[in-house]
């Protein structure tokens, strides 16, 4: 390696090559590093493809432009959902799992060859499904609700991909075991690793659900099974489809903690609270498939109410807790860093021109205000009647999985580039703007799709002017305005997305090498105190038992809570005006 001395570490009789990270002092297993790179690169490729398709979809749904013809639109929409939601996110998550195990625990990665096999399987699977979609006979959307049928390769590709991801989780767990046995860390695993463990445990459950439903569906598409029950399909499918969103939340929250740890020297206010919050996800997520089935015939109201709330909203509680402890950890750290004046100096003086921090903070705010609140409203049994299958639904999840997860992954990339790829981010000035462009764009598409959905506009719909329909209909003019604004913010998000791709690829190819002399500055602007400590891992000695003085955080959380409560009740008011039905 060009940077720190390559060190041949022999642990437990097994040779693994390590280097030592000049910025954090962590020992980096080179096999893990290569796998992280490979998975991250493929992830970014899928984001580039999928994001571009998203733009085409948004431009088609902008009635004034109406870019694609109907058949192409449905094909492109299917491909968009699959490439971003599955392939971009999951390849990136596998990279995060290897990072949170091997790197953070100073350990060698378990069975790198198996991890490469997983990687190959995932590539083959993702290519196969994409190929099937491109054939044109599998425009079934990523949900592929039966009895609509895709070609067998569509399902087979997804199955192969899932098996690959499952093996990746296995490698992660194996690495945890090795780290424990070889005592590569002391005490308990770091919080970030704990978050990753949460994600991986949920992933195993998720992939099991996926196998239970996709394998029979594949056999059905081949003609070996006569019939798949439509309701059972959705129930099990969403056991995969929704739980996998909680993998994203766990990974994204872990990344928030990682970024503020590295850049601000922040540590959790209380390890106990933050870990319990992660644990709530594991305990209650399995119930989540219910909130996709709230207006479905054939399920009891009791079942819906209990499960859509994940048993009394206990998984939501987990997110609400992180929603306070993450800004709280930032405030506590920044006050230690010397920004003690007034209510918000800690926030004003935060490193806003560091794209990792800016992306992380925008992700936190947008996820909470847009994705989080709308998710709970959408998932209330009766309120769902006003929103099911309208554009409100994609509006909600572009708040969670795009403005939240995708932006958090982008933010992390600005640290992965110097730490793992060992390259300084090229074009730092452009990089500075990237999270704002993407964040505001993604926030906009989320908001305006929710707006259109509130006005009743259908999701997955090629023509809201109904020009080919026998019985025509006009949505209110405001709905057309919403679709236009959605298109404009989609362009903004796409510019942010393209910048991200250019910066990432450019940095990997042409970025200046990082070594001990410039390692810390390569992470971008950070508070003076963190820089002076010489290693971003050395600050933050405040214990959680100390009384924290966090007035700013309480104000932010207060504003959030009031917005949540108001918006929640406004929707019940709307519902009460609907035609009575029972």
């Amino acid at each position, binding site marked *: 390696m060009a940077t720190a001395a390559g060190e041949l570490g022999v642990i437990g009789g097994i040779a693994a090559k390590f280097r030592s990270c000049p910025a954090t002092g962590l020992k980096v297993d080179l096999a893990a590093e290569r796998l992280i790179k490979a998975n991250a690169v493929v992830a970014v490729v899928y984001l580039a493809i999928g994001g571009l398709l998203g733009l085409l979809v948004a431009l088609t749904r902008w009635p004034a432009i109406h870019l694609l013809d109907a058949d192409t639109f449905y094909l492109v929409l299917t491909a968009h959902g699959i490439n971003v939601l599955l392939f971009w996110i999951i390849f990136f998550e596998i990279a995060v799992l290897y990072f949170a195990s091997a790197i953070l625990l100073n350990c060698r990665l378990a069975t790198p060859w198996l991890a490469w096999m997983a990687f190959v399987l995932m590539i083959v699977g993702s290519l196969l499904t994409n190929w099937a979609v491109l054939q044109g006979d599998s425009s079934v959307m990523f949900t592929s609700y039966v009895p609509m049928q895709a070609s067998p390769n569509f399902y087979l590709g997804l199955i192969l991909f899932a098996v690959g991801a499952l093996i990746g989780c296995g490698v992660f767990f194996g690495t945890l075991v090795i780290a424990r046995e070889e005592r590569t860390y002391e005490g308990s695993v770091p919080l970030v690793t704990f978050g990753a463990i949460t994600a991986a445990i949920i992933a195993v459950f998720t992939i099991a659900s996926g196998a239970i439903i996709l394998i029979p569906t594949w056999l059905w598409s081949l003609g070996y099974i006569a019939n798949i029950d439509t309701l059972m399909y959705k129930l099990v499918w969403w056991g995969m489809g929704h739980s996998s969103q909680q993998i994203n939340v766990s990974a994204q929250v872990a990344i928030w903690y990682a970024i503020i740890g590295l850049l601000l020297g922040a540590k959790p206010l*209380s390890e106990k609270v933050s870990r319990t919050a992660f644990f709530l996800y594991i305990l209650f997520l399995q119930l989540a498939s219910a909130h996709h089935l709230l207006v479905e015939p054939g399920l009891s109201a009791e079942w819906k109410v209990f499960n859509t709330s994940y048993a009394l909203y206990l998984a939501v509680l987990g997110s609400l807790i992180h929603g306070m402890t993450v800004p709280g950890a930032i405030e506590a750290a920044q006050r230690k860093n010397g920004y003690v004046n007034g209510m918000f100096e800690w926030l004003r003086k935060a490193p806003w021109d560091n794209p990792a921090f800016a992306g992380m903070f925008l992700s936190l705010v947008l996820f909470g205000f847009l994705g989080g609140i709308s998710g709970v409203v959408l998932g209330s049994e009766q309120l769902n009647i006003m929103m099911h299958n309208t554009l409100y639904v994609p509006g909600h999840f572009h708040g969670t999985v795009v403005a939240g997860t995708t932006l958090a992954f982008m933010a992390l990339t600005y640290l992965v580039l110097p730490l793992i790829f060992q390259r300084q981010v090229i074009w730092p000035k452009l990089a500075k703007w990237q999270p704002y462009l993407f964040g505001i764009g993604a926030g906009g598409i989320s908001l305006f799709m929710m707006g259109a959905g509130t006005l009743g506009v259908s999701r997955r719909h090629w023509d809201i002017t109904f020009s080919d329909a026998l019985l025509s*209909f006009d949505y209110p003019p405001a709905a057309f305005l919403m679709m236009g604004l959605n298109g404009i913010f989609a362009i903004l998000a796409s510019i942010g997305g393209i910048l991200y791709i250019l910066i990432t690829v450019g940095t990997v190819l042409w970025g200046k090498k990082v070594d001990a002399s410039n390692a810390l500055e390569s992470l971008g602007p950070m508070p003076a105190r963190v820089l002076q400590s010489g290693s971003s891992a050395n600050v933050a000695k405040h214990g959680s038992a100390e009384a924290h003085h966090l007035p700013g955080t309480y104000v932010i959380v207060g504003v959030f809570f009031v917005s949540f409560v108001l918006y929640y009740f406004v929707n019940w008011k709307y519902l009460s005006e609907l035609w009575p039905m029972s």
Partner: protein
Amino acid sequence: MALRPPEVRVWWNEPIARGELLWIVIAFLWGLFMFGMMIYWHLEGKQNLSTEVYRIDPEVFAQRAEETTEKYKIGEEGDTGIPIVAPPPGSDVYMVARLWEWWPVLQLEKGQSYRLHISSVDWQHGFSLQPVNINLQVHPGLEHIITITPQETGVFTVVCNEYCGLGHHTMTGRIRVVEPGQGG
């Protein structure tokens, strides 16, 4: 910090700061409240999804819809040839979802209740009544019976909002609501 093992090894015994604890309690109570809200609405609210559902052979369902249509037909919708059906208040009315139409057109009276039977005879569809904005999922083989009471007169459109193949965006239907006593 979060990337390192906890500094205090016995981290689970550390006390929790007051503000943090307070937020956890508030958030928990809010969750309980929201849970209670759904139950409350079942008891007091007027908009609840019916759970009256039967397994049915799609052909049988289509047949029944044909029969009621035959019985209460009052005309045709414009020059589309789609029958308009005006069933008596309180009666059972049928709406079939199929590729790619909602059939037939219904004419209902304002303020009267009807037992609306909805099902699909092929794929899944989405019943989206606009601009009222009532959205329901429709499955083949499951007959969903909803008691519905129109509150305003006018022409309402049923849009299909579950993607159902390449003609999805052409799948519409209609419900006309008239003043009581003005039905055909």
